[in-house]
């Protein structure tokens, strides 16, 4: 059960990485279509839900972790910040303030890397 949940959690996390890489290409000046950004946004929708659901399921499945462990609460907080930034990037994309959109994207990227750091080091576990 643990390994199956971990597999789906990992696949979901890789979908988040797809979104980050595709938006990074846009932030670096690549010309992309609205279809490409649609794919990137749907990857975040599915990956975001997947990481959250399978992540919490994993934590509940293992006896040595508790839902209220610091690293799990930190991960959920980072997930909320990253998702909020992503929605803001989606709304403002195509507007006049390109630098603000790019800045928000790079902050989201740092938050997602911080999520990965939290998952690997598990502070407070």
């Amino acid at each position, binding site marked *: 059960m643990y390994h*199956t949940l971990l597999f789906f959690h990992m696949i979901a996390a890789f979908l988040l*990485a797809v979104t*980050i890489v595709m938006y990074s290409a846009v932030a670096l000046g690549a010309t992309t279509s609205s*279809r*490409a950004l649609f794919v990137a946004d749907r990857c975040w929708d599915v990956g975001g839900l997947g990481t959250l659901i399978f992540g919490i399921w994993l934590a509940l499945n293992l006896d*040595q972790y508790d839902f209220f462990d610091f690293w799990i609460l930190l991960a959920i907080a980072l997930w909320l910040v990253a998702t909020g930034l992503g929605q803001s990037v989606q709304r403002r994309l195509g507007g006049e303030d390109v630098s603000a959109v790019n800045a928000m994207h790079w902050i989201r990227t740092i938050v997602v890397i911080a999520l*990965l750091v939290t998952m690997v080091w598990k502070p407070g576990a």
Partner: protein
Amino acid sequence: MSVLAAIRPDDWNLALFVHILGAMALVGALVLVIVALAERNLRLGYRALLLGVLPGWTVMRGGAQWIAEKEKLDDLDPVPSWVDIGYSVSDPMLLLIIIATVCAGLAARRQRQDGPLRGTALVLTVIMLVAASVAVWAMSTKPT
């Protein structure tokens, strides 16, 4: 067993982080290449292969070797099958990356949006994405 799988020494963490970060960049860039080539955006497809897929593979493979040495996985006899799957997926992938990059680069240079070069690069990238998914399955489920 699942408890054992969830616990590892702290000094393995950095190598694992580098390995996963590289793998995520690799998979993200592979999807970007597929979308770009499918839309006949040859320039973006080529650049994503050269500046995303290749560095992502390098970091992922370097991280894999690093953590394998820390865990002394290569010294085990027999080597666990999930490690074998990882190596047999990742090592040939470098050749596919090089071929796909050359094909996409030539297609972009010649502005041939419908030629066999774009198709070859696209098919190879799809194969690499499927192979990467198999590797993620092997790394997370660790079949014996």
